[in-house]
Each structure stands twice: as structure tokens, then as C-alpha cells.
């Protein structure tokens, strides 16, 4: 009885993770610009990997009796680093001038960046 429950739980977790990863790759193809793609890549893949690793952890712990601390550490590392990576890619893209999608409605950052560039220019000239 216990085995059936554990196996179905692990199966659901791992299938869910695979499904989320697949959907996020669809998102990478479908969405129109870097920033929106970055949304799909950071969020769905993070949760996908987390649930696959959790499934593997539960499988080894409950059926093999082997507690793998490395899987837990992997979960924590992915959880901490994925949003930072998303932020850095988005920031680098914006700084190098990758345009937003044509149907974007609001852009508060453009003015700030231009101001910064102007003051830098003035500093170089003066």
C-alpha cells in the first residue's frame, strides 16, 4: 500500500516537472521578445526542475532508504540562482539596447537610462 502511494506521488511530481519544462520551452518559441521569453524561462523551468528533483529525492528516500542531501542542496541552489540569472539577462539585454515588443504599453526605464548616458557624456566632455 505504501509503495503504491509513494510511486504515484513520485510519478506525478516527475511528470509535472517534465510537463512544466516542455511548456516553458514552448513559451520560448512563442513569446515575442527577450523579456517575455525570460519570464517563461525563469519561472516555469525553475518549478519544473524543482519538482523533478523533489520526485527523485522522495523516490530514493522512501523506496531505497537513502537520503540524498545533494539533491536537497541542488533544489536550494536552483531556487536561489534562477531568478538572479533571469534578472541579469534582462538587465544586460536592456543595457545593450534590445527593443521591447512593439505592443508594449509603458516604458519607465528608457528615460532613466538616457539621462544616465547624457550625464556620462557631459562628464567626458567637461
Amino acid at each position, binding site marked *: 500500500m505504501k509503495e503504491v502511494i509513494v510511486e504515484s506521488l513520485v510519478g506525478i511530481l516527475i511528470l509535472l516537472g517534465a510537463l512544466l519544462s516542455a511548456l516553458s520551452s514552448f513559451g520560448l518559441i512563442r513569446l515575442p521578445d527577450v523579456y517575455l521569453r525570460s519570464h517563461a524561462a525563469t*519561472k516555469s523551468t525553475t518549478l519544473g526542475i524543482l519538482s523533478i528533483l523533489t520526485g527523485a529525492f522522495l523516490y530514493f528516500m522512501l523506496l531505497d532508504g537513502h537520503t540524498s542531501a545533494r539533491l536537497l542542496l541542488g533544489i536550494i541552489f536552483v531556487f536561489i540562482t534562477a531568478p538572479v540569472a533571469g534578472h541579469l539577462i534582462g538587465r544586460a539585454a536592456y543595457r545593450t539596447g534590445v527593443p521591447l515588443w512593439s505592443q508594449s504599453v509603458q516604458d519607465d526605464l528608457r528615460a532613466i537610462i538616457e539621462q544616465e548616458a547624457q550625464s556620462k557624456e557631459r562628464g567626458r566632455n567637461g
Partner: protein
Amino acid sequence: MASQIILNLLIAFVWMFLKNTWNPATFIVGYLIGLLFLFMLRRFLKGDFYMRKVGAIINLVLLFLKELVLSNIAVIHEIIRPRLRIRPGIFTLKTELKSDWEVTMLACLITLTPGTLTLEVSPDNGTLYIHAMDIEDAEMLAKQIKGSFEKAIMEVSR
């Protein structure tokens, strides 16, 4: 907070010395007794009783997990919709958080919330520029972020 934890560990060790048994069970019993002492003597200690802060941290982690699941549902809903109906944009968010650590936490949380991505933090840590997937009402989104995350982080840090 750190000094209270060290004090608690010290009480647990003293308890192990008194019992003269050296196993994890005795340590845990000693730790719980130390917790009780610290709770009774909380008036004389610097800062709040530290378990309140531990509770706030657990609260923050749970919030993190909940937002991660919600944001995935939102993003996948947008992806599998037959026609794209998103209206992306960048909006500013003024924050009251001061230290680097707090702002980093807030930026990570925002990146994992439904449809928002931190693009830039201003040099004085006061303003965050956030790319939103669906910018129906930037004001409302900002208020929501401030209401839940900023408060949860403040609970931890002060």
C-alpha cells in the same frame, strides 16, 4: 538574534553536561529547555525573542513557494492561450527597504511572482524597474507587491 541562538546552544550543552548523556535526544531536550528559559527572560535580552524571527523566515519561504506556483500557473496560461493577449511594459516601484540584503530579497521575490521581472535597481536602492507581462494596472501591481512582500521582508529584518 545570533547571540540568543548561541546562548540557547550553550544551555543545551550545559544540560548535556548535567545529564552526562551525549546523544542527540538529550541535546534536543536541552535546547527546548533553553528555549523556555529564553522565552521567560525575554525582557532582559537584546531585541525580540528570536523564535518570532524564525517564524517570520518560515513565513517568507512559504510565501516564496506559493508565489512560484501561482506565477507558473499565470505564465503557462498565457503561453497555451491560442492568441497572445498580453500587454507588457516596464513600471517603477519605490521601495522603503534600505540595506542591500533586503533589496536583493525583494528583487528575487518579484522575479518569481506572477508575470513580473526585475530589470534594474537604481544605485541608491530606492527604486526598482520591473518588467511586467501584463501591465493592466501598474499602480495596483505595485501596491500588491508592496503589501505582501515588503511587509514580509520587513518582518524578518527588523
